[in-house]
């Protein structure tokens, strides 16, 4: 990379030499040619004055003939000098400026600045490769929680877009090809504060190379990859990539859960939602019956695999079976945008329709046509491009599936709330009645606002007061944390979802569970409940009040007490 600096210096030689040569000739000429003053005395220009004269002549500033009027011989030489020096000045300075604007030099400078700003990061950060829809969504979410991110993308437009974005944290960004390890290293892949490397480009090959480089150069780092090909996913997993996210797989599993476990899906929607999302109870999807699946590409196949085992009849419509392959069950050749094909697929007595082609226009058209033929249909639509967001919102399908947002959402949960992923893993094994009970508890607590989900670690940084109390032999329980101090007898609007102690996970812990140092707790509830609980964990007086203890003495008083026993 340093090559470019040497190359630029080398290319500066010629313009600089031309400048020196012409200046020297002009100065020597002026020094040698005699001048004549008003009295006819001969005088010579000194080197200093000659250089001064040439300097303003060459730059066409032209102060006139200094220090006194020139003789005609000097003027003749000056005429020659003007043409020579002005030309060489324009040439040299022009080419020097052009060199400084050289694209490769500018890129080298930008890369240097980027590497320097990454090196200066002193808090944990995430290296995000690929700033598409997923990347943008993720960077917004991370920076809004005061986490640092570093972005690399090959597209200049996207990087420009990032720089215009109003983010809470400075996000160093570089336009470069992430397939070269140099770029990844300058992006901080080996930085000791690098928490995770996220490969989110739309190209599976690039993601694969980034994952490979990350595992080779910094084996301890968490690597999260997006991949929508099964081959590449298997390849990534073969060298211990921590998470490989396939949006189609994620969605297919979600859809299956939506059809079989309604309450769990609601829980998933609510707890995984963005802070500003609307809380609504989705329509219950029909169980059993005929489903029409339009499109048998990557998305269609994933959905087919998941729904196959369920108690429903699947009818596939595909326009190019030669490319996608054919499902083992019944299928129809066509696009699904015209009534005739849908009619053949039996849309009138179907219960649901999945518009899953890779064209947004076709998907919208399928939905509109099908709804006209059967208004009762449960509609699932795949959204490919964020640009069409408004159209998809207007068509009002029951489930909208956006690959980029699905991946972004999943990663956000992984990075922000690792306990939430574990909570869902456990919740999936519970029965539907359990999930429905929890849903009604959450709904009663929140009344339409979106729940805030958060984690507390009981450690010196997040819960110093609780650690002190535990050292003094007190045994704080979960109920003490959830008690509302301003309203005796009431509890804060929050539910403890998960309690972790040394690898043991406790789903929906009981109120008298002891909270000990080293524990981790996952809560959901109102935003203000979060700050109340945090207050108890941090402030020793509030905590001792919650535990029914007298107020603790201040530091100074305690010091005095230990020196003067009479004060007790």
């Amino acid at each position, binding site marked *: 990379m340093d090559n470019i600096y040497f190359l630029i210096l*080398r290319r500066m030689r010629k313009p*600089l*030499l031309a400048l020196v040569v012409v200046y*020297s000739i002009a100065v020597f000429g002026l020094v040698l040619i005699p001048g004549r003053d008003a009295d006819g005395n001969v005088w010579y220009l000194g080197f200093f004055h000659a250089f001064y004269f040439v300097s303003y002549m060459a730059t066409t500033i032209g102060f006139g003939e200094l220090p006194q009027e020139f003789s005609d011989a000097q003027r003749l030489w000056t005429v020659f000098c003007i043409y020579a020096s002005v030309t060489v000045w324009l040439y040299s300075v022009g080419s020097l400026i052009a060199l400084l604007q050289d694209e490769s030099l500018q890129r080298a400078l930008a890369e240097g600045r980027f590497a320097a700003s990454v090196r200066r990061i002193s808090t944990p950060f995430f290296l995000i490769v690929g700033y598409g829809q997923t990347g943008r969504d993720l960077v917004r979410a991370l920076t809004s929680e005061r986490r640092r991110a570093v972005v690399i993308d090959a597209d200049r437009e996207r990087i420009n877009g990032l720089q215009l974005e109003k983010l809470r944290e400075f996000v160093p960004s570089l336009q470069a090809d992430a397939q070269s390890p140099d770029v990844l290293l300058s992006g901080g892949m080996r930085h000791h504060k690098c928490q995770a490397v996220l490969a989110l480009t739309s190209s599976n090959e690039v993601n694969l190379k980034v994952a490979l480089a990350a595992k080779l150069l910094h084996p301890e780092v968490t690597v999260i990859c997006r991949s929508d090909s099964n081959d590449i996913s298997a390849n990534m997993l073969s060298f211990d990539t921590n998470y490989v996210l396939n949006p189609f797989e994620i969605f297919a599993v979600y859809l299956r859960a939506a059809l079989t476990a309604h309450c769990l899906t609601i829980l998933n929607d609510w707890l995984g939602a963005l802070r500003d999302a609307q809380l609504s109870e989705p329509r219950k999807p029909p169980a059993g019956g005929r489903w029409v699946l339009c499109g048998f590409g990557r998305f269609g196949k994933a959905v087919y695999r998941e729904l196959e085992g369920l108690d429903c009849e699947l009818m596939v419509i595909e326009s190019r079976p030669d490319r996608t392959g054919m499902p083992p069950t019944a299928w129809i050749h066509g696009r699904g945008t015209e009534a005739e094909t849908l009619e053949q697929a039996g849309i009138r007595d179907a219960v649901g329709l999945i518009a899953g082609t890779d064209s947004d226009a076709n998907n919208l058209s399928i939905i509109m046509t099908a709804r006209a033929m059967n208004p009762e249909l449960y509609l699932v639509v795949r959204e490919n491009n964020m640009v069409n967001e408004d159209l998809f919102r207007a068509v009002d399908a029951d489930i909208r599936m956006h690959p980029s947002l699905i991946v972004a959402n999943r990663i956000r949960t992984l990075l922000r709330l690792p306990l939430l992923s574990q909570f869902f893993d456990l919740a999936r094994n519970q029965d539907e009645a359990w999930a429905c009970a929890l849903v009604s508890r959450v709904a009663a607590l929140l009344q339409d606002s979106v729940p805030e989900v958060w984690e507390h670690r009981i450690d010196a940084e997040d819960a110093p007061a609780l650690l002190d109390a535990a050292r003094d032999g007190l045994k704080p329980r979960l109920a003490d944390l959830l008690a509302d101090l301003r309203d005796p007898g009431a509890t804060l609007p929050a539910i403890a979802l998960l309690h972790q102690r040394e690898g043991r996970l406790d789903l929906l812990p009981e109120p008298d569970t002891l909270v000990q140092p080293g524990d981790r707790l996952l809560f959901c509830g109102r935003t203000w409940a979060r700050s109340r609980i945090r207050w108890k964990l941090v402030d020793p007086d509030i905590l001792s009040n919650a535990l029914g203890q007298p107020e603790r003495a201040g530091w100074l008083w305690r010091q005095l007490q230990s020196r003067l026993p009479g004060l007790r």
Partner: protein
Amino acid sequence: MNLEKVVFGFFIFLALTLNFGFFVGEIDNPAHHHVREFVLLFIVNAVALIMKLGDRSQVDAMLLATGLVAMLQLIGAAIIWILAAHVWESGMTPGVMSSIVSLAGGAMVANVISVVLLVVETVTLRR
């Protein structure tokens, strides 16, 4: 034979020889140190410095450093000379002349080092 190397060597040697020519003589006697010789020396040094730009081996970096040192010393000498000739009322005293010549002497040491480096590099290339 590489013509670029010939030109390169020529200017580096010329810078040293001119520097020596200017330096010899009584240190405080302006008659022994001519202004035109100094200007020539200055220009040749500038050219030699520009020729040293943009090579990337360790020896080339040292050559560039010696060139920068010589140029710095000569610029100092030139400024003192201009001040003495045009600004200060005392004019060109022996004291001023000796400080100019001693600066030029410093530049000469840098030029000697750069010639030695060039010779060493050439000799190691031969082997």
